């Protein structure tokens, strides 16, 4: 040991800290305006970029926190759900040798005939089918029945799941005046596809609206890539829906097909900031197909992705 005086750590550290405050001590004025000139374009780009929702904090205790998910994460989840649905449909249900049956529409000019498949089950009886029609709504909502058919599962409605596509054997539901259709699992499957289709259309509408809003503005590469990712996810969902019973409705099929084309263009051109000609190409494709008005009219008022 040397006889050099040693630091008493605690007070010396405090002295060091106090002295260190002088290190590179800021002085003068912050050049706010000069820096803002360089920053302002980034602010404009943020405003015109593809914006993900910002989480809103709990304002009051006990108020449920809203979940906000970036669009492409949400659509990825939707796509995963659709893949699962389509796979289950093909792998689990297809081997049961469906019997095609022409289904009468129930009533009204706006309703249409849907080709349906009846999958007879060994345990299915007329009584079973009949009883399924009168199943309480609470049972219909059970998550477990969303994909799997019950033994009474007699028929699957092949359209997007609008109440117009009904089994002729079903009876009007006295609860809400609308027509009950299929069995409980059929209703859940329809609801799944209807929900998936609606969510995809909501996302597509948001994406294309955002795209159009950005159209005239120069955009940085990051925004373009982000839009590309979002478009890719919506495109995946769209293609899955095209492969699903949801696309058996000719109107929806046409809409999904046009949507697929435009989304594919956006995805293809999303590697770099768009040139004017490329933007024009996409704009024209959207305009010629009346895509946004059709998307909006296909969605119920106030539909959101939440």
């Amino acid at each position, binding site marked *: 040991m040397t006889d050099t005086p040693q630091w008493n750590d605690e007070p010396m550290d405090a002295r060091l800290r106090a002295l260190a405050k002088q290190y590179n001590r800021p002085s003068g004025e912050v050049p706010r305006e000069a820096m803002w000139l360089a920053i302002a374009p980034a602010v404009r780009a*943020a405003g015109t970029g593809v914006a993900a929702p*910002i989480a809103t904090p709990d304002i009051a205790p006990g108020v449920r926190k809203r979940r906000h998910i970036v669009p492409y994460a949400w659509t990825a989840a939707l796509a995963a759900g659709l893949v699962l649905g389509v796979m289950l449909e093909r792998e689990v249900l297809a081997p049961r040798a469906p019997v095609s049956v022409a289904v009468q529409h129930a009533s009204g000019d706006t309703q249409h005939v849907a080709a349906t498949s009846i999958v007879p089950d060994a345990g299915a009886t007329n009584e079973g089918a009949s009883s399924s029609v009168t199943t309480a709504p609470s049972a219909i909502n059970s998550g477990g029945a969303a994909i799997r058919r019950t033994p009474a599962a007699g028929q699957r409605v092949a359209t997007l799941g609008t109440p117009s596509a009904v089994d002729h054997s079903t009876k009007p539901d006295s609860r809400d005046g609308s027509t009950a259709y299929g069995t409980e699992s059929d209703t859940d499957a329809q609801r799944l596809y209807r929900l998936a289709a609606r969510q995809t259309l909501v996302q597509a509408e948001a994406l294309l609206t955002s795209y159009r809003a950005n159209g005239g503005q120069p955009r940085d590469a990051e925004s373009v890539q*982000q839009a590309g990712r979002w478009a890719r996810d919506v495109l995946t969902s769209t293609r899955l829906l095209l492969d699903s019973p949801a696309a058996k409705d000719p109107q929806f099929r046409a809409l999904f097909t046009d949507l697929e084309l435009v989304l594919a263009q956006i995805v293809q051109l999303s590697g770099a900031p768009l040139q004017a000609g490329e933007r024009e190409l996409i704009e024209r494709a959207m305009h010629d197909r009346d895509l946004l008005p059709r998307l909006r009219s296909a969605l119920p008022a106030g539909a959101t992705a939440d």
Partner: protein
Amino acid sequence: MDGQQLDERELIARVLAGDEAAGRRLYDAHVDRVFWLAYRMCGRHELAQDFTQDAFIRAFSRLPDYRGEAAFGSWLHTIAVSVILNGLQKVKRFDQREALLDEAVMVPSATRHAEPDLKERLAKAIDALPEGCRTVFLLHDVEGYTHEEIGEALEITAGTSKAQLSRARAKLRDSLADFAGEWVHD
């Protein structure tokens, strides 16, 4: 959640909706702290200006990804620290090349015999700290960040931050050991 944070969320939403004035308000609310942090870390006004600009440009361009899980200020400072450290690395490489060139052409000056004062020695000792230690020391002991905030900004654990700080202080004490006698007898 206090009123300021709610207000900032409103401002962020407005920026994302294309309101440049809201962006300016966000900028005004945070620019001083970011600039002074940059200046503290680099000690050069022009560099601090460049780093601050870069930090804000990056933050605004990433604003659509901001989920609001952390306070906007913390999120912004995380970006700022990252920008500053990356920038400093580039500057250091450049400065080293310049120094080598200077050494090659300059006649060695006479050795300074006068003992620099403590402040100057401390500044040199801080400059000589390893980058990680120096950053943690400046953020914690000078700028008043918590270890949790530092951990978030540097993507290290709070424990690592504490360890770095402890090492930084020990190195500074070693560097300034010859002043210890004066201080002990103060």
